[in-house]
């Protein structure tokens, strides 16, 4: 059996009294897209920083490519591609030069770097901006450039910390398309996100993190099957009517969640639930039937939403 690319046991990160990552275990295998899903402050970025060897491990054990990051971080970083949460492109350099210097940091020769730059510009759809400054690029372009930069050394493991946060929907879809392409080429990806649609689109397997702990693990489909009935009936009531209506919802669904602005009924048969609703004489202002998502899984596991 081959060793996982990343293996963590009891991995812990503390800042003073605050425990950011609380004794987590995970294995990340070659060729998979592995996600860390959780709200802001769940400990995702701290975990990424330990994997990228730039943050010392407080407690526990971890290996990346079989190597202890505290012992030989440099040899690990040689094989990593890192896309940080915040763009840190060099604004004094052009698009192509940003790729070039990271090639140099990875000790590549000019003759190796130059063809690679053209490939990556093509991949990031930035060929026409090759010699332009970084500053005037759109958010989506900067993000794609940051990803291209992370790929310059043909990394064995690509780490993306919140890759699409702050981008408009169109830019996000373009980025997902690029990441999906990488996945198809067999790259190993680690992605952190607080967007459940992103995790569902990109991740083969993921862990759900909350307050520094891993609360569930599996493929998006497994997690939904395990933690949420197939369908959700969302009810919205006229102002002031929700409290009274909630009292009459007993037994309607296998589980329900009462949120500030709506009630979620989890059920395996939405039609039957709706019929019972009518039979009881409950008439919400609005009824929406949808499939369960990772958002529902998260709600079930933590009692809170992913995005505050």
């Amino acid at each position: 059996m081959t060793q996982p690319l990343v293996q963590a046991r009891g991995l812990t990160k503390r800042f003073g009294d605050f425990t950011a990552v609380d004794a987590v275990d995970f294995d990340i295998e070659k060729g998979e897209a592995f996600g860390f899903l959780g709200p802001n402050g769940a400990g995702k970025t701290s975990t990424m920083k330990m994997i990228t060897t730039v943050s010392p491990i407080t407690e526990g054990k971890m290996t990346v490519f079989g190597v202890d990051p505290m012992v030989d971080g440099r040899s690990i970083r040689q094989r990593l591609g890192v896309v940080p949460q915040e763009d840190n492109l060099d604004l004094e350099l052009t698009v192509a030069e940003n790729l070039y210097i990271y090639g140099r940091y990875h000790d590549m020769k000019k003759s190796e770097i130059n063809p690679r730059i053209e490939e990556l510009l093509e991949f990031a759809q930035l060929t026409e901006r090759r010699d332009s400054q970084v500053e005037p690029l759109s958010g989506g372009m900067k993000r794609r450039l940051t990803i291209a930069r992370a790929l310059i050394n043909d990394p064995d493991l690509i780490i993306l910390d919140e890759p699409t946060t702050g981008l408009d929907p169109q830019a996000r879809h373009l980025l997902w398309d690029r990441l999906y392409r990488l996945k198809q080429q067999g790259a190993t990806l680690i992605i952190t996100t607080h967007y459940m649609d992103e995790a569902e689109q990109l991740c083969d397997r993921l862990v759900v993190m909350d307050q520094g702990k891993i609360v569930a693990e599996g493929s998006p489909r497994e997690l939904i099957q395990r933690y949420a009935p197939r369908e959700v009936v969302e009810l919205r009531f006229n102002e002031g009517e929700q409290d009274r209506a909630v009292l009459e919802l007993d037994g309607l669904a296998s589980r329900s969640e009462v949120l500030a602005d709506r009630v979620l009924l989890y059920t395996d048969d939405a039609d039957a639930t709706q019929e019972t609703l009518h039979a009881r004489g409950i008439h919400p202002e609005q009824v929406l039937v949808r499939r369960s998502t990772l958002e529902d899984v998260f709600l079930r596991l933590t009692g809170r939403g992913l995005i505050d």
Partner: protein
Amino acid sequence: MTATTLSRSLRYAESEVLAYRRTWRGTVITSFVNPVFFLAAMGAGLGTLVDGGTGQGLPIPYVTFVASGLIAANAMQNGAGDGSFPVMAGLKWRKNFHGTITTPLGAEDIIWGRLIWAVGRLLFVLAVFTIIAVLFGALEVGPALLAIGPGVLTGVAFTTAITAWTLNQEDDRSLSSLFRFGIVPLFLFSGTFFPIPFLPDWLEPVAYFTPLFHGVELARKVALPDVGAPVVTDMPAWINLAYLLVMAGVGVYYSIRSLDKRLRV
């Protein structure tokens, strides 16, 4: 510094060179034009008054005195500039340093790389200034070119010490204060424009402890080999040299330590 650290630092310095191709225009005034203005205004202009004056004059033309001092003072200005705002930018504004350490490079490579680049730039800036001073007739070409050595060392001492200091600041407010209350007084009172013994008695000993004094002294001892007091003091040159070397060494050590601490949290 080992051979591999050197190779990595050179690769980092390469990125600074690339960036400089686009930013050099912004440095022309402070690096090249201002020192020449000082040389012209103080040396040639004020110098006619000084040289024609009475009493305790200098055994050399005033323009020669100022030109030799400006080699070190100019180096200090450039070194302080390199060690302050660009360092804060890499750390907090543009965050380039944070990206760099996710590659095989580490904090020590960034510091050494920046230092290599600073030496290159100091050599260039001081060579241009020295040649202009020679053309002014202020200095003799041979000793003047040799004085670039002490000048570069002065710049290195300042850039490393100020880098270390900047890496321990939270924002740029303290950086502006550094120039207002540190660099400007040093520039004026460390012997560039008049010999230290001409200072009020109580201030004189203070001047001997300032780093720019040692830079100016050493540059003058090399640029004007046959001249003694009051142009230079009786302090042996090795003390000036040792002061600057220790300052640079301590600066590098704390720069690496501080940067590593700031980046690897």
